[in-house]
């Protein structure tokens, strides 16, 4: 897992011990509600200096899908 993505999750959920994998979903993290999701998306945009389009915003079923999206974006640049 990307260190920066791991760090964003730990900071947004204020949990230093949090470990996310490609298979992690919102159901695995109790605090991952719709509000936390907005914070998470903002923090990811900020950290990776990208804009996530509206139609992608709610489309990530797993952390792995988010990671792949970020990698695709990084590769596209």
């Amino acid at each position, binding site marked *: 897992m990307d260190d920066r993505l791991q760090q*964003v999750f730990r*900071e947004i959920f*204020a949990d230093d011990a949090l470990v996310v994998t490609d298979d992690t979903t919102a159901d695995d993290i109790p605090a991952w509600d719709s509000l936390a999701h*907005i*914070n998470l998306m*903002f923090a990811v945009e*900020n950290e990776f200096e990208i804009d996530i389009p509206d139609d992608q915003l709610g489309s990530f079923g797993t952390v792995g899908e988010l990671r792949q999206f970020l990698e695709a974006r990084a590769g596209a640049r």
Partner: protein
Amino acid sequence: MTTRQDDGRDAGAGAMRTGLDRARAAERSGDDAGAVRWALAATDAGDDLAAWSAAAGVIARCLPRTASLSRGARVAVLGSYTTSQLSALLPVAAARAGVAVEVYECGYGQYRQEILDPSSGLYRFGPDVVVLAVHAGEAQLPAMSQDPDADVAAEAARWTSLWDLLVERTGARVVQHLFAIPPDVALGHLAARTPGCRATMLAAVNAALGRAAGSRVALVDCDRLAAEVGKRRWFDARYWHRAKQAVSLGCVPLLARHTGAVLGAQLGASRKCLVLDLDNTLWGGVLGEEGLGGIALGDGPAGEAFAAFQDHILELKAKGVILAVCSKNNDADAREVFERHPAMRLRLDDIAMFSASWADKPAQIRQIASTLGIGLESLVFVDDNPAEREVVRQLVGEVDVIDLPPDPHGYVRALASYPFFETPALTAEDAGRAAQYRARAQAAQLAAGATSLEDFHRSLAMVATVVPLDEVTLPRVAQLVAKTNQFNLTGRRRSQAELAELAADPRTAVLCVRLTDQFADHGLVTVAIASQEHDVLDIDTWLMSCRVIGRTLEDETAGLLVAEARLRGCRYVRGHYLPTAKNGLVADLFTRLGFALVEPAASHGVRLDGACSDGACSDGAHADGAGANGLRSDRPCSERPRSDGGMPEHRSGATSWLLAVDDAVSPPGLIQITRTDRELEGTAS
């Protein structure tokens, strides 16, 4: 606090992460107080949302296990937009301001219902402080009003009646977020002259709320915060449309910090005393090495930066901040700068406690606090030296330490960004209040009454001070002599040593003139050097900084030269104009001052340097265009270092001019003249 970049993404994120790493390490080792301290320090370093969220987590876990904060408050956040992030960050921001808070957040957009309904969760919570976190979209104002005064008054009254209800029902203090005014205005610049435009009305409502806020209502000026970071950054349409975030998530930490600071001030937790280092903080250079005349202050870019910093400090004093000095210096030397340096803004009587010694700074700071009878948690320490800042952080942790950037031009912003000098209200005792009112009245008079240039000059209340050429002034005088191109009659360049030698010669008079007015201290701006030759006072050098051209100072300087001639028993004053590529500005000066052109033959004996020739006299017909009011000031400034550093190239057409002392016309008298160069001889007039 670290100065943040104004653009783009959070420049302080790296520094925040360092603080957070230390906070986590402390937390893991069971050091809750250390974890709190480092988490709070991390929030000083930047505005990164994720890092703030992490810091908020540390505070939520560790703060309750320490008893480090003596103040506590129950805070209700009532919002018109999604305020969950603000509510989540408020505990860390309030803890930074010195208050442990428990937060209640009303439902989305429910602020009005919660206040109006006596059985709402708000009243069950029993708040000590209510934060009204509202955004511009919530203001009940039309896009264009037919009756803006009425609409503004009604909107302001809607909020003040909510305040009244809150205070009546809870006794709580209210923290009102003023409206941040969106930058996207369809009317464009026409909005500025259209009172009925929504943006204009929003500003008017802000102003009305400012006037209406009594002692129980504090304001957070969100429009200023938004402008500070850039409104395009503050307003993020994507997150408004996605999640009703009226404040960009990247700006919520800033809003939280300032809300915390204002809230803390309401509860008496604001800082009271600014402790100032001296060397490289109030002036440039080390006094012990450079000496009184060698420090950078007032003149030159760095000197202006330090002077501007002092001006800002004086504004803090005017709002009630106590000033103290904490310096490693000889006490007498340090005080001498305050007493003698002409560009010092701060005076000794501005400083409540002056501590200059070779004792370590933590010891000096403890002494300052005990002498002033205030707690260490009231102090804020400012020092350019990172080592001194660190030792104070470590040994007197209660003291807040402001990080100054390496470049003095950033000092004002670093200090202005520090939010914990917030005061609930200015009281009648606050120093400088009377002066503020006086300045306001004067500004009004200026606007109303300046119908002529003379009136304008009078209204400036200019004071010219003739100062001695000594160790303090010599560097600036040498700089002026080396760099002044436009208003420079002879263009002669001289070294510091040559100037000092001239000044020591009793036949030579050196006039060094500072100019101040009600708005600014212009510093040392004019130099005239004249030598007595029998019954003639011969002007060897006469120059003036371009920043004060067009203010009649040259007329007054001529008057001073005439007075000098009289004092020495001379019958004539003789001037020379040596044309250079850049001094056409003063080609007409002697004519305008009533001097008569002398035939070339009569100018023999005049000391002219090097390439200058006194033989080629022009016909005196100079078409410079300077009008009756003196010199034009609309020329580009060329007072800057010459790349060659040598003599300007003199052109042909040098002229000499003579004025009989008895024929001299009195100067216009629009500038008050004082002299500090003549203490022993008395004032010459």
